[in-house]
Protein backbone atom coordinates (compact mmCIF):
# COMPACT_ATOMS: atom_id res chain seq x y z
CA UNK A 1 0.00 0.00 0.00
CA UNK A 2 1.31 3.39 -0.92
CA UNK A 3 2.20 5.52 2.05
CA UNK A 4 1.52 9.25 1.77
CA UNK A 5 4.80 11.08 2.16
CA UNK A 6 5.44 14.76 2.32
CA UNK A 7 8.34 15.55 0.04
CA UNK A 8 10.96 18.01 1.19
CA UNK A 9 12.71 19.00 -2.01
CA UNK A 10 15.86 21.06 -1.93
CA UNK A 11 17.97 22.09 -4.92
CA UNK A 12 21.44 21.08 -3.69
CA UNK A 13 24.75 19.84 -5.02
CA UNK A 14 26.29 16.42 -4.41
CA UNK A 15 28.60 17.53 -1.62
CA UNK A 16 25.73 19.15 0.28
CA UNK A 17 23.67 16.02 -0.24
CA UNK A 18 26.45 13.85 1.24
CA UNK A 19 26.96 16.25 4.17
CA UNK A 20 23.27 16.26 5.05
CA UNK A 21 23.12 12.46 4.76
CA UNK A 22 26.11 12.08 7.12
CA UNK A 23 24.48 14.48 9.58
CA UNK A 24 21.15 12.63 9.44
CA UNK A 25 23.02 9.34 9.95
CA UNK A 26 24.14 10.89 13.25
CA UNK A 27 27.83 10.28 12.65
CA UNK A 28 29.78 10.76 15.86
CA UNK A 29 33.28 11.30 14.51
CA UNK A 30 34.26 13.07 11.29
CA UNK A 31 37.94 13.12 10.38
CA UNK A 32 38.79 14.64 7.03
CA UNK A 33 41.36 16.62 5.12
CA UNK A 34 40.09 18.98 2.42
CA UNK A 35 40.85 18.18 -1.23
CA UNK A 36 39.22 19.33 -4.46
CA UNK A 37 36.40 18.50 -5.31
CA UNK A 38 35.51 17.08 -1.87
CA UNK A 39 36.28 20.34 0.02
CA UNK A 40 32.72 21.75 0.31
CA UNK A 41 31.62 18.45 1.89
CA UNK A 42 34.11 18.81 4.77
CA UNK A 43 33.37 22.55 5.08
CA UNK A 44 29.66 21.83 5.42
CA UNK A 45 30.23 19.10 8.02
CA UNK A 46 32.57 21.25 10.08
CA UNK A 47 29.92 23.99 9.97
CA UNK A 48 27.23 21.56 11.15
CA UNK A 49 29.44 20.61 14.10
CA UNK A 50 30.39 24.23 14.84
CA UNK A 51 26.74 25.35 14.83
CA UNK A 52 25.72 22.47 17.05
CA UNK A 53 23.48 20.89 14.40
CA UNK A 54 25.59 17.74 14.46
CA UNK A 55 26.79 16.36 17.76
CA UNK A 56 30.06 14.93 16.55
CA UNK A 57 33.75 15.25 17.09
CA UNK A 58 35.26 16.92 14.03
CA UNK A 59 38.94 16.01 13.88
CA UNK A 60 40.89 18.31 11.58
CA UNK A 61 43.78 16.02 10.64
CA UNK A 62 47.02 16.80 8.80
CA UNK A 63 46.57 14.12 6.11
CA UNK A 64 44.16 11.58 4.67
CA UNK A 65 46.22 8.75 6.11
CA UNK A 66 45.52 10.20 9.55
CA UNK A 67 41.86 10.81 8.64
CA UNK A 68 41.35 7.09 8.12
CA UNK A 69 43.50 6.27 11.16
CA UNK A 70 41.19 8.48 13.28
CA UNK A 71 38.07 6.88 11.75
CA UNK A 72 39.52 3.44 12.49
CA UNK A 73 40.28 4.33 16.10
CA UNK A 74 36.88 5.96 16.56
CA UNK A 75 35.05 2.99 15.09
CA UNK A 76 36.94 0.53 17.30
CA UNK A 77 35.84 2.35 20.47
CA UNK A 78 32.24 2.25 19.27
CA UNK A 79 31.66 5.53 17.38
CA UNK A 80 29.96 5.90 14.02
CA UNK A 81 32.72 7.39 11.86
CA UNK A 82 32.69 9.25 8.55
CA UNK A 83 35.20 10.69 6.14
CA UNK A 84 35.31 11.93 2.58
CA UNK A 85 38.12 12.37 0.11
CA UNK A 86 39.15 12.36 -3.54
CA UNK A 87 41.98 11.32 -5.81
CA UNK A 88 45.42 11.73 -4.19
CA UNK A 89 43.73 11.84 -0.80
CA UNK A 90 42.24 8.40 -1.32
CA UNK A 91 45.56 7.12 -2.64
CA UNK A 92 47.29 8.48 0.46
CA UNK A 93 44.72 6.60 2.60
CA UNK A 94 45.46 3.31 0.89
CA UNK A 95 47.23 1.59 3.80
CA UNK A 96 44.53 2.57 6.28
CA UNK A 97 41.76 1.44 3.89
CA UNK A 98 43.18 -2.06 4.18
CA UNK A 99 43.35 -1.63 7.95
CA UNK A 100 39.71 -0.52 8.28
CA UNK A 101 38.44 -3.45 6.21
CA UNK A 102 40.81 -5.96 7.82
CA UNK A 103 39.66 -4.89 11.30
CA UNK A 104 36.05 -5.21 10.06
CA UNK A 105 35.11 -1.63 10.97
CA UNK A 106 31.88 -0.24 9.49
CA UNK A 107 33.28 3.16 8.45
CA UNK A 108 31.61 5.03 5.59
CA UNK A 109 33.71 7.07 3.18
CA UNK A 110 32.42 9.41 0.48
CA UNK A 111 34.77 9.27 -2.49
CA UNK A 112 34.24 12.28 -4.72
CA UNK A 113 35.72 10.76 -7.86
CA UNK A 114 38.64 12.68 -9.36
CA UNK A 115 41.55 11.88 -11.67
CA UNK A 116 45.00 11.14 -10.25
CA UNK A 117 48.30 12.79 -11.33
CA UNK A 118 50.73 12.99 -12.90
CA UNK A 119 49.91 15.28 -14.61
CA UNK A 120 47.89 17.37 -12.15
CA UNK A 121 44.17 17.31 -12.80
CA UNK A 122 41.31 18.15 -10.43
CA UNK A 123 38.49 16.94 -12.68
CA UNK A 124 36.44 13.78 -12.75
CA UNK A 125 37.18 10.19 -13.58
CA UNK A 126 36.95 7.00 -11.48
CA UNK A 127 40.60 5.96 -11.39
CA UNK A 128 40.88 6.86 -7.68
CA UNK A 129 38.24 4.51 -6.29
CA UNK A 130 38.93 1.79 -8.87
CA UNK A 131 42.57 1.80 -7.69
CA UNK A 132 41.25 0.88 -4.20
CA UNK A 133 39.17 -2.01 -5.53
CA UNK A 134 41.08 -4.71 -3.66
CA UNK A 135 41.17 -3.15 -0.19
CA UNK A 136 38.11 -5.10 1.00
CA UNK A 137 35.65 -2.20 0.96
CA UNK A 138 32.14 -2.40 -0.44
CA UNK A 139 31.89 0.15 -3.27
CA UNK A 140 28.63 1.75 -4.38
CA UNK A 141 28.42 4.34 -7.18
CA UNK A 142 25.77 7.07 -7.47
CA UNK A 143 24.16 8.47 -10.61
CA UNK A 144 22.71 11.67 -9.14
CA UNK A 145 22.47 13.70 -5.92
CA UNK A 146 19.36 11.90 -4.65
CA UNK A 147 21.26 8.63 -4.86
CA UNK A 148 24.14 10.20 -2.90
CA UNK A 149 21.76 11.12 -0.06
CA UNK A 150 20.00 7.76 -0.04
CA UNK A 151 23.07 5.57 -0.59
CA UNK A 152 25.04 7.18 2.20
CA UNK A 153 22.27 6.51 4.71
CA UNK A 154 21.95 2.92 3.46
CA UNK A 155 25.75 2.55 3.63
CA UNK A 156 25.72 2.66 7.44
CA UNK A 157 22.92 0.08 7.56
CA UNK A 158 24.92 -2.22 5.31
CA UNK A 159 28.33 -1.60 6.89
CA UNK A 160 27.09 -2.13 10.45
CA UNK A 161 25.31 -5.35 9.55
CA UNK A 162 28.14 -7.07 7.71
CA UNK A 163 31.04 -5.27 9.45
CA UNK A 164 32.63 -4.16 6.21
CA UNK A 165 33.39 -0.49 5.45
CA UNK A 166 31.50 1.11 2.56
CA UNK A 167 32.80 3.59 0.00
CA UNK A 168 30.06 5.73 -1.54
CA UNK A 169 31.42 7.06 -4.83
CA UNK A 170 30.09 10.03 -6.81
CA UNK A 171 31.54 11.96 -9.73
CA UNK A 172 33.52 15.09 -8.89
CA UNK A 173 32.05 18.35 -10.23
CA UNK A 174 29.49 16.54 -12.42
CA UNK A 175 27.59 15.70 -9.21
CA UNK A 176 29.63 17.24 -6.38
CA UNK A 177 29.26 20.80 -7.74
CA UNK A 178 25.99 20.51 -9.69
CA UNK A 179 22.73 21.44 -8.01
CA UNK A 180 19.61 19.36 -8.65
CA UNK A 181 16.41 18.52 -6.75
CA UNK A 182 16.92 16.20 -3.78
CA UNK A 183 14.18 14.98 -1.45
CA UNK A 184 15.71 15.39 2.01
CA UNK A 185 14.31 12.77 4.41
CA UNK A 186 12.87 13.45 7.86
CA UNK A 187 15.32 12.89 10.72
CA UNK A 188 12.73 10.75 12.52
CA UNK A 189 12.49 8.44 9.51
CA UNK A 190 16.27 8.15 9.25
CA UNK A 191 16.41 7.29 12.98
CA UNK A 192 13.78 4.62 12.41
CA UNK A 193 15.76 3.21 9.48
CA UNK A 194 19.20 3.40 11.04
CA UNK A 195 19.56 2.08 14.60
CA UNK A 196 22.61 3.12 16.67
CA UNK A 197 25.91 1.38 15.85
CA UNK A 198 26.71 -1.75 17.86
CA UNK A 199 30.43 -2.61 17.57
CA UNK A 200 31.49 -6.27 17.36
CA UNK A 201 34.43 -5.55 19.68
CA UNK A 202 35.01 -2.48 21.81
CA UNK A 203 38.38 -1.37 23.01
CA UNK A 204 37.89 0.00 26.49
CA UNK A 205 40.66 0.87 29.00
CA UNK A 206 38.40 -0.46 31.78
CA UNK A 207 38.51 -3.87 30.15
CA UNK A 208 41.91 -4.14 28.43
CA UNK A 209 42.35 -6.54 25.55
CA UNK A 210 44.48 -7.10 22.48
CA UNK A 211 43.01 -6.48 19.08
CA UNK A 212 44.61 -6.93 15.67
CA UNK A 213 47.79 -8.26 17.19
CA UNK A 214 50.39 -10.06 15.10
CA UNK A 215 48.58 -13.03 13.61
CA UNK A 216 50.48 -16.05 12.35
CA UNK A 217 49.79 -18.00 9.22
CA UNK A 218 48.16 -20.92 11.00
CA UNK A 219 45.42 -21.01 13.64
CA UNK A 220 46.81 -21.30 17.16
CA UNK A 221 45.70 -21.74 20.73
CA UNK A 222 45.47 -18.53 22.74
CA UNK A 223 46.41 -18.03 26.41
CA UNK A 224 42.76 -18.74 27.29
CA UNK A 225 43.12 -22.21 25.72
CA UNK A 226 40.79 -21.39 22.79
CA UNK A 227 41.73 -21.95 19.15
CA UNK A 228 42.10 -18.65 17.26
CA UNK A 229 42.01 -17.98 13.54
CA UNK A 230 45.22 -17.63 11.58
CA UNK A 231 45.73 -14.72 9.19
CA UNK A 232 44.31 -16.63 6.26
CA UNK A 233 41.08 -17.58 8.07
CA UNK A 234 40.51 -13.89 8.86
CA UNK A 235 41.07 -13.02 5.19
CA UNK A 236 38.62 -15.74 4.18
CA UNK A 237 36.01 -14.30 6.55
CA UNK A 238 36.38 -10.85 4.97
CA UNK A 239 35.89 -12.33 1.51
CA UNK A 240 32.90 -14.33 2.78
CA UNK A 241 31.40 -11.17 4.30
CA UNK A 242 31.57 -9.40 0.93
CA UNK A 243 30.28 -12.48 -0.93
CA UNK A 244 27.30 -12.64 1.42
CA UNK A 245 26.65 -8.90 1.61
CA UNK A 246 24.40 -8.95 -1.48
CA UNK A 247 21.37 -9.98 0.59
CA UNK A 248 22.07 -7.25 3.16
CA UNK A 249 22.45 -4.64 0.42
CA UNK A 250 19.15 -5.68 -1.19
CA UNK A 251 17.39 -5.80 2.18
CA UNK A 252 18.72 -2.33 3.09
CA UNK A 253 17.37 -1.11 -0.27
CA UNK A 254 13.97 -2.75 0.25
CA UNK A 255 13.50 -1.35 3.73
CA UNK A 256 14.64 2.06 2.53
CA UNK A 257 11.83 1.92 0.00
CA UNK A 258 9.30 1.01 2.69
CA UNK A 259 10.16 4.09 4.73
CA UNK A 260 11.23 6.64 2.10
CA UNK A 261 9.45 5.47 -1.06
CA UNK A 262 12.54 5.11 -3.22
CA UNK A 263 13.49 1.58 -4.24
CA UNK A 264 17.12 0.51 -3.94
CA UNK A 265 16.56 -3.24 -3.78
CA UNK A 266 18.92 -3.72 -6.74
CA UNK A 267 22.60 -4.19 -7.38
CA UNK A 268 22.45 -2.09 -10.58
CA UNK A 269 19.99 -0.01 -12.55
CA UNK A 270 18.31 -1.40 -15.66
CA UNK A 271 16.76 0.61 -18.45
CA UNK A 272 14.80 -1.23 -21.16
CA UNK A 273 16.76 -4.44 -20.63
CA UNK A 274 13.67 -6.63 -21.21
CA UNK A 275 14.09 -6.59 -25.01
CA UNK A 276 17.60 -5.16 -25.39
CA UNK A 277 19.82 -6.85 -27.97
CA UNK A 278 22.51 -4.25 -27.35
CA UNK A 279 23.37 -3.19 -23.81
CA UNK A 280 25.36 -0.13 -22.84
CA UNK A 281 27.16 -0.53 -19.49
CA UNK A 282 28.31 2.50 -17.51
CA UNK A 283 28.87 3.45 -13.86
CA UNK A 284 28.13 6.67 -11.96
CA UNK A 285 26.60 9.74 -13.60
CA UNK A 286 27.59 8.40 -17.03
CA UNK A 287 24.86 5.76 -16.57
CA UNK A 288 22.27 8.60 -16.82
CA UNK A 289 23.84 10.09 -19.94
CA UNK A 290 23.77 6.54 -21.37
CA UNK A 291 19.96 6.48 -21.07
CA UNK A 292 19.84 9.54 -23.36
CA UNK A 293 22.18 7.73 -25.79
CA UNK A 294 19.86 4.69 -25.71
CA UNK A 295 16.90 7.00 -26.52
CA UNK A 296 18.76 8.23 -29.62
CA UNK A 297 19.58 4.69 -30.75
CA UNK A 298 16.02 3.45 -30.10
CA UNK A 299 14.78 6.20 -32.42
CA UNK A 300 16.91 4.59 -35.12
CA UNK A 301 15.20 1.26 -34.46
CA UNK A 302 18.02 -0.36 -32.48
CA UNK A 303 17.01 -2.36 -29.42
CA UNK A 304 19.32 -0.76 -26.88
CA UNK A 305 19.18 -0.99 -23.10
CA UNK A 306 21.36 0.36 -20.30
CA UNK A 307 22.91 -1.40 -17.35
CA UNK A 308 23.98 1.24 -14.83
CA UNK A 309 26.42 -0.36 -12.41
CA UNK A 310 25.69 0.54 -8.80
CA UNK A 311 27.40 -1.97 -6.49
CA UNK A 312 30.88 -2.60 -7.87
CA UNK A 313 32.13 -4.55 -4.82
CA UNK A 314 30.77 -7.13 -4.25
CA UNK A 315 30.37 -7.49 -8.02
CA UNK A 316 26.90 -8.95 -8.72
CA UNK A 317 27.95 -11.61 -11.21
CA UNK A 318 24.79 -13.71 -11.51
CA UNK A 319 22.49 -10.67 -11.48
CA UNK A 320 24.50 -9.20 -14.37
CA UNK A 321 24.26 -12.47 -16.31
CA UNK A 322 20.48 -12.44 -15.83
CA UNK A 323 20.22 -8.82 -17.01
CA UNK A 324 22.38 -9.42 -20.09
CA UNK A 325 20.69 -12.68 -21.13
CA UNK A 326 19.23 -11.27 -24.37
CA UNK A 327 22.20 -9.13 -25.33
CA UNK A 328 24.14 -9.94 -28.48
CA UNK A 329 26.44 -6.97 -28.04
CA UNK A 330 27.62 -5.35 -24.81
CA UNK A 331 29.29 -1.96 -25.02
CA UNK A 332 31.12 -1.06 -21.82
CA UNK A 333 32.22 2.51 -21.11
CA UNK A 334 34.88 2.92 -18.43
CA UNK A 335 36.08 6.13 -16.76
CA UNK A 336 39.15 4.24 -15.58
CA UNK A 337 41.86 2.10 -17.12
CA UNK A 338 43.74 -0.89 -15.78
CA UNK A 339 46.93 -0.09 -17.70
CA UNK A 340 48.05 -2.89 -19.98
CA UNK A 341 44.62 -4.50 -19.79
CA UNK A 342 41.25 -2.74 -20.15
CA UNK A 343 38.58 -0.83 -18.21
CA UNK A 344 37.91 -2.39 -14.81
CA UNK A 345 34.15 -2.76 -15.25
CA UNK A 346 34.65 -4.41 -18.66
CA UNK A 347 36.86 -7.07 -17.05
CA UNK A 348 34.10 -7.70 -14.49
CA UNK A 349 31.45 -8.12 -17.18
CA UNK A 350 33.64 -10.52 -19.18
CA UNK A 351 34.43 -12.50 -16.05
CA UNK A 352 30.73 -12.72 -15.10
CA UNK A 353 29.77 -14.01 -18.54
CA UNK A 354 32.46 -16.68 -18.77
CA UNK A 355 31.01 -20.17 -18.87
CA UNK A 356 27.40 -18.98 -19.22
CA UNK A 357 25.17 -19.56 -22.22
CA UNK A 358 25.48 -15.88 -23.18
CA UNK A 359 27.76 -15.56 -26.17
CA UNK A 360 27.73 -11.82 -26.65
CA UNK A 361 30.41 -9.68 -28.23
CA UNK A 362 31.92 -7.14 -25.88
CA UNK A 363 33.42 -3.78 -26.84
CA UNK A 364 35.14 -1.53 -24.32
CA UNK A 365 35.61 2.25 -24.63
CA UNK A 366 37.70 4.37 -22.28
CA UNK A 367 36.05 7.78 -21.86
CA UNK A 368 35.99 10.89 -19.73
CA UNK A 369 39.42 10.67 -18.11
CA UNK A 370 40.54 13.82 -16.32
CA UNK A 371 37.18 15.51 -16.86
CA UNK A 372 36.96 15.01 -20.64
CA UNK A 373 33.33 15.74 -21.45
CA UNK A 374 31.31 12.68 -22.56
CA UNK A 375 28.19 13.44 -24.56
CA UNK A 376 25.23 11.12 -25.12
CA UNK A 377 25.81 11.50 -28.86
CA UNK A 378 29.38 10.20 -28.42
CA UNK A 379 28.10 7.17 -26.50
CA UNK A 380 25.59 6.55 -29.32
CA UNK A 381 28.28 6.93 -32.02
CA UNK A 382 30.63 4.55 -30.19
CA UNK A 383 27.79 2.03 -29.88
CA UNK A 384 27.15 2.24 -33.63
CA UNK A 385 30.86 1.81 -34.28
CA UNK A 386 30.76 -1.30 -32.09
CA UNK A 387 27.80 -2.63 -34.09
CA UNK A 388 29.67 -2.03 -37.37
CA UNK A 389 32.74 -3.82 -36.02
CA UNK A 390 30.70 -7.00 -35.64
CA UNK A 391 30.70 -7.36 -39.44
CA UNK A 392 34.49 -7.62 -39.39
CA UNK A 393 34.87 -9.87 -36.40
CA UNK A 394 32.83 -11.01 -33.45
CA UNK A 395 35.94 -11.85 -31.47
CA UNK A 396 36.41 -9.60 -28.49
CA UNK A 397 39.46 -7.36 -28.95
CA UNK A 398 42.32 -7.61 -26.45
CA UNK A 399 42.37 -3.92 -25.69
CA UNK A 400 39.80 -1.13 -25.38
CA UNK A 401 39.30 1.79 -27.74
CA UNK A 402 39.78 5.29 -26.37
CA UNK A 403 37.49 8.17 -27.21
CA UNK A 404 40.20 10.84 -27.42
CA UNK A 405 42.21 12.76 -30.02
CA UNK A 406 44.85 10.07 -30.65
Amino acid at each position, binding site marked *: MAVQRKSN*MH*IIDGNQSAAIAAKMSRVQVVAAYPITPQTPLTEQLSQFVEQGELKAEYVAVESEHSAMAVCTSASIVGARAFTGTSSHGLAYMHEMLHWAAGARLPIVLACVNRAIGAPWN*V*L*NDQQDSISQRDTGWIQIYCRNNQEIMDTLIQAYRIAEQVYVPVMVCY*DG*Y*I*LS*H*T*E*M*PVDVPDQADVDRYLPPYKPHTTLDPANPKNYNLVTLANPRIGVDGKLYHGYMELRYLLQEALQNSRETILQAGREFNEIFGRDYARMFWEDRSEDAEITIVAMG*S*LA*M*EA*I*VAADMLREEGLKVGVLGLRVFRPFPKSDVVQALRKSRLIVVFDKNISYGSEGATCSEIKSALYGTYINASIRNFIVGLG*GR*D*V*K*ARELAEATKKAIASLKETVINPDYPEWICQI
Partner: protein
Amino acid sequence: MAQKSSLSNQPLEIRWHGRGGQGAITAAKIIAQAAYVKGYKGVTAAPSFGAERRGAPVSASTRISTEPVLVVSQVENPEIVVVLDHTLLKYPDVTHGLDKHGWLVVNSPLSPKELGLKGEFSIATADATRICQDLGLIVAGLVIVNTAILGALIRATKIVDLPTLEKVMRERFSRDTVDINLAAVTKTYEITKLAK
Protein backbone atom coordinates in the same frame (compact mmCIF):
# COMPACT_ATOMS: atom_id res chain seq x y z
CA MET B 1 0.81 27.50 -7.20
CA ALA B 2 2.53 25.78 -10.08
CA GLN B 3 1.41 27.15 -13.42
CA LYS B 4 1.90 23.97 -15.42
CA SER B 5 0.09 25.30 -18.48
CA SER B 6 2.81 27.87 -19.16
CA LEU B 7 5.74 25.46 -18.94
CA SER B 8 7.91 24.94 -21.99
CA ASN B 9 7.70 21.40 -23.40
CA GLN B 10 11.21 21.63 -24.80
CA PRO B 11 14.11 21.32 -22.36
CA LEU B 12 15.92 24.65 -21.97
CA GLU B 13 19.66 25.09 -21.62
CA ILE B 14 21.10 28.37 -20.36
CA ARG B 15 24.77 29.25 -20.41
CA TRP B 16 26.05 32.08 -18.25
CA HIS B 17 29.17 34.14 -18.88
CA GLY B 18 30.63 36.55 -16.39
CA ARG B 19 33.76 37.32 -14.51
CA GLY B 20 34.80 35.62 -11.29
CA GLY B 21 33.13 37.44 -8.40
CA GLN B 22 30.14 38.75 -10.40
CA GLY B 23 27.86 35.97 -9.23
CA ALA B 24 27.07 34.16 -12.48
CA ILE B 25 26.96 30.83 -10.62
CA THR B 26 24.53 32.15 -8.03
CA ALA B 27 22.31 33.50 -10.83
CA ALA B 28 22.39 30.07 -12.51
CA LYS B 29 21.23 28.53 -9.24
CA ILE B 30 18.49 31.07 -8.52
CA ILE B 31 16.84 30.61 -11.92
CA ALA B 32 17.02 26.80 -11.54
CA GLN B 33 15.30 27.05 -8.18
CA ALA B 34 12.66 29.43 -9.54
CA ALA B 35 11.95 27.11 -12.47
CA TYR B 36 11.53 24.22 -10.03
CA VAL B 37 9.11 26.26 -7.94
CA LYS B 38 7.18 27.06 -11.10
CA GLY B 39 6.70 23.34 -11.77
CA TYR B 40 9.64 22.13 -13.85
CA LYS B 41 10.57 18.71 -12.40
CA GLY B 42 14.06 18.65 -13.87
CA VAL B 43 16.50 21.43 -13.08
CA THR B 44 20.27 21.48 -12.73
CA ALA B 45 22.72 24.32 -12.11
CA ALA B 46 26.47 23.93 -12.43
CA PRO B 47 29.59 26.08 -12.47
CA SER B 48 32.18 25.55 -15.18
CA PHE B 49 34.36 22.81 -13.74
CA GLY B 50 37.80 23.53 -12.39
CA ALA B 51 39.53 26.60 -11.01
CA GLU B 52 37.89 30.02 -10.93
CA ARG B 53 39.57 33.34 -10.25
CA ARG B 54 38.21 36.76 -9.41
CA GLY B 55 38.00 38.88 -12.57
CA ALA B 56 38.75 36.05 -14.99
CA PRO B 57 36.05 34.91 -17.46
CA VAL B 58 33.82 32.22 -15.89
CA SER B 59 30.80 30.35 -17.12
CA ALA B 60 27.96 28.37 -15.59
CA SER B 61 24.94 26.49 -16.85
CA THR B 62 21.31 25.86 -15.99
CA ARG B 63 19.13 23.11 -17.42
CA ILE B 64 15.34 23.29 -17.13
CA SER B 65 12.93 20.53 -18.17
CA THR B 66 9.48 19.16 -17.38
CA GLU B 67 11.20 15.76 -16.91
CA PRO B 68 14.14 14.92 -14.61
CA VAL B 69 17.42 15.95 -16.31
CA LEU B 70 19.55 12.94 -17.28
CA VAL B 71 22.14 14.84 -19.31
CA VAL B 72 25.28 15.51 -17.25
CA SER B 73 27.62 16.58 -20.06
CA GLN B 74 28.35 20.22 -20.76
CA VAL B 75 25.89 22.51 -22.54
CA GLU B 76 26.63 22.63 -26.26
CA ASN B 77 23.70 24.35 -27.93
CA PRO B 78 22.04 26.62 -25.38
CA GLU B 79 18.66 28.21 -26.06
CA ILE B 80 19.74 31.14 -23.91
CA VAL B 81 23.09 32.82 -23.25
CA VAL B 82 23.32 35.39 -20.46
CA VAL B 83 26.34 37.74 -20.39
CA LEU B 84 27.00 39.66 -17.18
CA ASP B 85 29.90 41.66 -18.61
CA HIS B 86 29.52 42.85 -22.22
CA THR B 87 33.30 43.06 -22.72
CA LEU B 88 33.19 39.26 -22.85
CA LEU B 89 31.31 39.43 -26.18
CA LYS B 90 34.66 39.74 -27.96
CA TYR B 91 35.28 36.05 -27.18
CA PRO B 92 33.61 33.81 -29.79
CA ASP B 93 33.02 31.15 -27.08
CA VAL B 94 30.35 33.33 -25.53
CA THR B 95 27.76 33.05 -28.31
CA HIS B 96 29.08 29.73 -29.64
CA GLY B 97 26.34 27.19 -30.31
CA LEU B 98 23.50 29.57 -29.35
CA ASP B 99 20.26 28.37 -30.93
CA LYS B 100 19.08 30.64 -33.77
CA HIS B 101 15.62 30.76 -32.17
CA GLY B 102 17.22 31.53 -28.83
CA TRP B 103 18.00 34.63 -26.76
CA LEU B 104 21.21 36.44 -25.98
CA VAL B 105 20.74 38.50 -22.81
CA VAL B 106 23.49 41.07 -22.18
CA ASN B 107 24.27 43.53 -19.41
CA SER B 108 25.17 46.51 -21.60
CA PRO B 109 24.42 50.22 -21.92
CA LEU B 110 24.00 49.63 -25.66
CA SER B 111 20.79 48.67 -27.44
CA PRO B 112 20.60 45.20 -29.05
CA LYS B 113 21.30 46.72 -32.50
CA GLU B 114 24.23 48.79 -31.25
CA LEU B 115 25.98 45.60 -30.10
CA GLY B 116 26.54 44.91 -33.81
CA LEU B 117 26.47 41.13 -33.42
CA LYS B 118 25.99 38.68 -36.25
CA GLY B 119 23.60 35.82 -35.64
CA GLU B 120 19.91 35.01 -36.05
CA PHE B 121 19.18 34.80 -32.31
CA SER B 122 17.13 37.45 -30.52
CA ILE B 123 18.92 39.92 -28.28
CA ALA B 124 17.93 41.60 -25.02
CA THR B 125 20.07 44.28 -23.38
CA ALA B 126 19.79 46.21 -20.13
CA ASP B 127 22.22 48.47 -18.33
CA ALA B 128 22.15 46.42 -15.15
CA THR B 129 25.44 47.92 -13.98
CA ARG B 130 23.94 51.43 -13.91
CA ILE B 131 20.79 50.21 -12.12
CA CYS B 132 22.90 48.50 -9.45
CA GLN B 133 25.22 51.49 -9.09
CA ASP B 134 22.20 53.78 -8.58
CA LEU B 135 20.80 51.38 -5.98
CA GLY B 136 24.17 51.03 -4.26
CA LEU B 137 24.32 47.28 -4.88
CA ILE B 138 28.08 47.23 -4.47
CA VAL B 139 30.06 44.71 -2.42
CA ALA B 140 33.80 45.20 -1.77
CA GLY B 141 33.98 47.71 -4.61
CA LEU B 142 32.31 45.37 -7.13
CA VAL B 143 28.93 46.20 -8.68
CA ILE B 144 26.86 43.04 -8.19
CA VAL B 145 24.72 42.58 -11.32
CA ASN B 146 23.82 38.91 -11.05
CA THR B 147 20.34 39.41 -9.61
CA ALA B 148 19.58 42.46 -11.80
CA ILE B 149 20.30 40.52 -15.00
CA LEU B 150 17.66 37.97 -13.96
CA GLY B 151 15.12 40.76 -14.58
CA ALA B 152 16.28 41.05 -18.21
CA LEU B 153 16.37 37.26 -18.58
CA ILE B 154 12.80 36.66 -17.46
CA ARG B 155 11.52 39.69 -19.40
CA ALA B 156 12.97 38.26 -22.63
CA THR B 157 12.35 34.56 -22.14
CA LYS B 158 9.40 34.37 -19.69
CA ILE B 159 10.92 31.23 -18.09
CA VAL B 160 9.41 32.31 -14.79
CA ASP B 161 7.35 35.33 -13.73
CA LEU B 162 8.45 38.07 -11.34
CA PRO B 163 6.41 36.80 -8.33
CA THR B 164 8.02 33.31 -8.61
CA LEU B 165 11.48 34.84 -8.78
CA GLU B 166 10.69 37.07 -5.82
CA LYS B 167 9.50 34.08 -3.77
CA VAL B 168 12.75 32.20 -4.40
CA MET B 169 14.91 35.24 -3.69
CA ARG B 170 13.10 35.90 -0.41
CA GLU B 171 13.95 32.32 0.66
CA ARG B 172 17.53 32.61 -0.44
CA PHE B 173 18.62 36.10 0.64
CA SER B 174 18.88 37.58 4.11
CA ARG B 175 16.26 40.15 5.11
CA ASP B 176 18.65 43.10 4.82
CA THR B 177 19.84 42.28 1.29
CA VAL B 178 16.71 40.92 -0.39
CA ASP B 179 14.90 44.23 -1.00
CA ILE B 180 17.77 45.94 -2.82
CA ASN B 181 18.24 42.83 -4.98
CA LEU B 182 14.54 42.66 -5.77
CA ALA B 183 14.57 46.35 -6.70
CA ALA B 184 17.48 45.62 -9.06
CA VAL B 185 15.48 42.81 -10.69
CA THR B 186 12.33 44.90 -11.13
CA LYS B 187 14.11 48.01 -12.44
CA THR B 188 16.19 45.98 -14.89
CA TYR B 189 13.06 44.12 -16.01
CA GLU B 190 11.46 47.49 -16.84
CA ILE B 191 14.36 48.97 -18.85
CA THR B 192 15.22 45.82 -20.83
CA LYS B 193 15.33 46.44 -24.59
CA LEU B 194 14.27 43.53 -26.79
CA ALA B 195 15.12 42.85 -30.44
CA LYS B 196 13.54 39.72 -31.91
